[in-house]
């Protein structure tokens, strides 16, 4: 079955390269296990070859690759700060993130910080009062050229080639924390001790972590596979505060937003090419 799929990939890839491929597929994830059960990802059967190969295969067919990204519309969050709180809670619950409650050992995937901390390189001289006083959402940037992946000595953190997510394999992490030193966005947390006692409520669809490994936002890879949106995006549903999608797809919602609005990104001078954008 594996070899069959690989063959299919080659054919599909070649056909798209030749310009006869389907229009780029709007996909949140490169895979949709159980997608048919949920009735999601319909319309993803754009690739002519895809239909014949069933739900599992068609999604890997985008050769140029999906690059998942996020736009955070701070105007909406400033107006309604509770949106960000909801997003953070949703993430914490979805991923069994422990609430350790001290700065030394805390673990955070998405959290709040003031403008001057999130954008230390930008001017914050006479910043608009409402921006100055508001908390920004901070999370992993899922860089296109991630320094953490370069630094990791075991490929425990890596870029998923099918969708651009910078992911973690907790099974493989040796806990050297080189990635934490390498990340220019402070997005990574380390399990200084067993996190389980600090988890308030278990989500049995996701594991916890063990002590001694690094963790961070995974753009909800596990939820995307089920055809769901990331937890934080879902928590802000209907408001447009967080828009998520494929940056490489000109038709995607996120691209419509990016085409229209002026956005900024965190510390772009480092060449990491972040995939998270902010509208201020």
């Amino acid at each position, binding site marked *: 079955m594996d070899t069959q799929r690989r063959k299919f990939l080659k054919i599909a890839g070649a056909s798209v390269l030749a310009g006869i491929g389907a229009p780029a597929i709007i996909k949140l994830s490169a*895979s949709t*296990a159980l997608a048919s059960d949920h009735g999601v990802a319909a319309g993803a059967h754009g690739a002519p070859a895809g239909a014949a190969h069933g739900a599992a295969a068609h999604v890997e067919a985008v050769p140029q690759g999906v690059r998942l990204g996020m736009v955070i519309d701070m105007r909406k969050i400033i107006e309604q700060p509770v949106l960000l709180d909801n997003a953070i809670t949703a993430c914490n619950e979805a991923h069994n993130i422990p609430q350790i409650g001290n700065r030394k050992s805390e673990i955070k995937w998405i959290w709040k910080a003031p403008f001057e901390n999130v954008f230390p390189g930008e001017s914050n001289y006479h910043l608009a009062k409402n921006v100055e006083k508001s908390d920004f959402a901070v999370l992993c940037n899922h860089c296109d050229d991630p320094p953490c992946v370069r630094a990791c000595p075991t490929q425990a953190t890596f870029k998923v080639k099918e969708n651009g997510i910078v992911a973690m394999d*907790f*099974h493989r992490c040796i806990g050297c924390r080189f990635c934490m030193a390498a990340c220019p966005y402070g997005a990574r947390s380390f399990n200084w001790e067993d996190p389980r006692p600090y988890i308030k*409520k278990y989500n*049995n*669809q996701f*594991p916890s972590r*063990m002590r001694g490994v690094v963790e961070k936002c995974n753009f909800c890879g596990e939820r995307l596979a089920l055809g769901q949106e990331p937890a934080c995006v879902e928590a802000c549903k209907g408001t447009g505060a967080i828009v998520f999608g494929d940056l490489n797809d000109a038709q995607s919602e996120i691209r419509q937003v990016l085409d229209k609005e002026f956005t900024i990104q965190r510390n772009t001078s480092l060449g990491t090419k972040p995939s998270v954008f902010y509208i201020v």
Partner: protein
Amino acid sequence: MYNKGTIIPGLIIFVLFVTFPIWFNGLKAAPAPKPELPPGGEKKCIESVEYMRANHMQVLNQWRDNVLRDDKRTVVEVEGKKYRKGLQQACMQCHSNKEKFCDNCHTFAAVTPYCWDCHLTPKEAASKEGTR
């Protein structure tokens, strides 16, 4: 032989020491464990019993890499029922009692896999009002 008086008793002590696990158990093997069958009554696994007994760890490792690294989160289907690849998502849907199924053999074989340092058993998940 020089130092016969020390070498021979020394050798005897050494041999006794390294064979400790054998004679300590009175030269008998402990009874083989009988892991609990799925309480839900499922009869078929993704492969034969013999295959699973010998290779479940490789299967899990392969699933792990499939899901995490290769983004091949394909479904496994057994008797019309679909499961997502994963220890929590597939295996423990039927083999829901870790203590009676997994630990039973692992303790006997003196192996301590680190699966449950992260993965939640149904019991563990329920201990903190598991959602969904």
